[in-house]
C-alpha cells in the first residue's frame, strides 16, 4: 500500500492510453511522455500497460505501507527517500514507513512515479488513464489528493535494469518541435507561415492557459488569408495537431480530444511528441517544418532504438 502525503501541483494515474473508441469521442488520455512511461515499467519489470502516476510540480510525497521497489522517470527531479537523495531513471528500494519526497523539478515538467508491481485500480474502458474532464478512469476519475491510499500488487523483484544515459532526453527550453504540414496550411498567408517556422528564439511562449487538453502558445498570431473561413467543418484530429483558432494563436492538441474545428497548420512529428509533456508556461518554443518522409524515418529510427521498451518485459 502507498499513501499520498502531498500530490504536488497535479498528479493522476495514467497508462499507454484508451484507444479504440474514437468513433464515440473517447480520447486516449494517455501518459504524455511515452518514453518516460514505458521506461518506468521497463525499469521496474512491470508489464507494459501497468498504470503509473503522472505528476507535475514540487512537493510530491508518498509514504509506503510495504517494502517496494520504486522509480521516477520523466522530468529531472531533486528527490529524497527519507533524507537520502535518489537518482532519477534508476530503480531504488524503499522500506515500509519510509517517505519519498520530490523537493523540486530541475528540468522538464511532468514526471512519472511507479512501483514494482501494479497499483490496484479499476480498468475503465480498457484503460487505467484518468479522463479528468469526464471524471472516469484512474483513481475514481479524479486527481490524487492527500490521504489517498492505493494497494500495490507486488511482483517479484528482478535484476536491476537501467536505461542507457544517452537515451534520456534533455527537456530544458527552448523546445524545438518539428512539424509536418497540415491539411489547412494554405488557409494562412505565406508570410505568416514562413514566420511561424523561423527558428528565432522567443517566437512563441507557452501560455499559462495551457492544460491537459492543449498547449496554448503566445506570440505572433498566424494570419489567415483574406476571405478564408476561419473554422472548418469539425473532423477527426490526432494528438500533436497544431490548430489555429480565430485569434491566430496556435494550440497544440494533446490526448483529450478526437474531433476539432480549427484550421490545422500542421502536426508535431511523432519523434517530438514526448517533448510536449515538458512544455511549461513561459518556455520558448521553436518550430521547424520537415517533410512527412523525414518524420517517418526519424520515428522509425526512434522506434528501433526504443524497441527494447515495447517488447513484453514482464518480470518473474
Amino acid at each position: 500500500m502507498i499513501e499520498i502525503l502531498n500530490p504536488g501541483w497535479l498528479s493522476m494515474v495514467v497508462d499507454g492510453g484508451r484507444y479504440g473508441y474514437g468513433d464515440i469521442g473517447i480520447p486516449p488520455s494517455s501518459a504524455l511522455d511515452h518514453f518516460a512511461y514505458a521506461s518506468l515499467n521497463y525499469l521496474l519489470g512491470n508489464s507494459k500497460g501497468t498504470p503509473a502516476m503522472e505528476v507535475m510540480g514540487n512537493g510530491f510525497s508518498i509514504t509506503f505501507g510495504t517494502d517496494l521497489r520504486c522509480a521516477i522517470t520523466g522530468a529531472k527531479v531533486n528527490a529524497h527517500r527519507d533524507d537520502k537523495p535518489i537518482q532519477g531513471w534508476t530503480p531504488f528500494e524503499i522500506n515500509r514507513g519510509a517517505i519519498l519526497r520530490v523537493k523540486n523539478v530541475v528540468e522538464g515538467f511532468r514526471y512519472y512515479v511507479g512501483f514494482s508491481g501494479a497499483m490496484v485500480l479499476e480498468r475503465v474502458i480498457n484503460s487505467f488513464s484518468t479522463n479528468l474532464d469526464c471524471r472516469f478512469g484512474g483513481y475514481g476519475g479524479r486527481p490524487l489528493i492527500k490521504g489517498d491510499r492505493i494497494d500495490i500488487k507486488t511482483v517479484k523483484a528482478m535484476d536491476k535494469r537501467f536505461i542507457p544515459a544517452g537515451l534520456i532526453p534533455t527537456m530544458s527550453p527552448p523546445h524545438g518541435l518539428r512539424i509536418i504540414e497540415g491539411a489547412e496550411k494554405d488557409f494562412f498567408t505565406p508570410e505568416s507561415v514562413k514566420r511561424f517556422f523561423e527558428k528565432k528564439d522567443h517566437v512563441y511562449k507557452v501560455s499559462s492557459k495551457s492544460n491537459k487538453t492543449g498547449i496554448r502558445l503566445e506570440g505572433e498570431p498566424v494570419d489567415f488569408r483574406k476571405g478564408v473561413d476561419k473554422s472548418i467543418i469539425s473532423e477527426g484530429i490526432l494528438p500533436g495537431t497544431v490548430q489555429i483558432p480565430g485569434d491566430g494563436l496556435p494550440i497544440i492538441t494533446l490526448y483529450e480530444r478526437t474531433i476539432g474545428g480549427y484550421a490545422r497548420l500542421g502536426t508535431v512529428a511523432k519523434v517530438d511528441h514526448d517533448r510536449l509533456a515538458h512544455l511549461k508556461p513561459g518556455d520558448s518554443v521553436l518550430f521547424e517544418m520537415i517533410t512527412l518522409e523525414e518524420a517517418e524515418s526519424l520515428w522509425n529510427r526512434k522506434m528501433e532504438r526504443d524497441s527494447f521498451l515495447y517488447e513484453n518485459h514482464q518480470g518473474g
Partner: protein
Amino acid sequence: MNYSRYGEDGIRIIFGESIEAKVSESIRRYYFFLKASNLPGIIDIIPSFRSCLIHFDSRQTSSERLISYLKKSKEKVDKIEIPEPVTHEIPVQYGSEYGPDMEFVSSYSGLSQEEVIEIHTSKVYTVFAVGFMPGFPFMGTLDKRLYSPRLETPRVKVPKGSVGLAQLQTGIYPFESPGGWQIIGTTKVHLFNYRQEPYSLLKIGDRVKFLRE
C-alpha cells in the same frame, strides 16, 4: 473519395466538401466496413461530417499497405450489410433556467420562444459525428430559422444534459464542461455511461427527435 496522409500514422479519407445527408451515409457505410474488416494495426476510426480518419500503428502496418487495400475495396464497401440507424426520442425541458440562451436565440431569430421550441422539435436530426467529448452528438441539420452563432466567450461551465445550438447544428452535452453553444434546454437522458457498453447512447447515423417535456 480522396485519400491523404495525416501525420505519420493517420489516413484521412474525404467524402465531400459540405455537410450533406448523402455524404454522411457514405461515411457511415465506410466506417462499418472498416470495423468489419478488422485490419491489423488500426488503433482508431474517427468518422465525422465529411471524412473518416484512420489512426494506425506504424509498427504493425503502413499507410501504403492500408491505402492500397482500401483503394481495392470499393465493391466490398458497397456490398456490406450495415445496421439500420436507431431513432431516439429525447425529452427536453426548454427555456427559463433550463435554457439560459433561449432569450438570445429568440431575439436573434426574431421568433417567439414557443416558435423556437416548435421548430426545434419538429425535425428528426441525424448524428453526423460523436466527439468533442465522449458521447457528444453533432446533429443536423437545423432549420435555417434557428441558425445561431456560437457564444463569443464560451462558458466556463455548461451543465450536463444541456441542449445547444451552433450555426446549423444541434447537440447535447453528456458531461458538465466548458462550451460555446447556445443552450436552449436540458434533458435528463444520460448520453454516456462508462460502466456499461454501449458507452454512448448515440452513434454516427442515429436519428434524434426532441420532445417537449
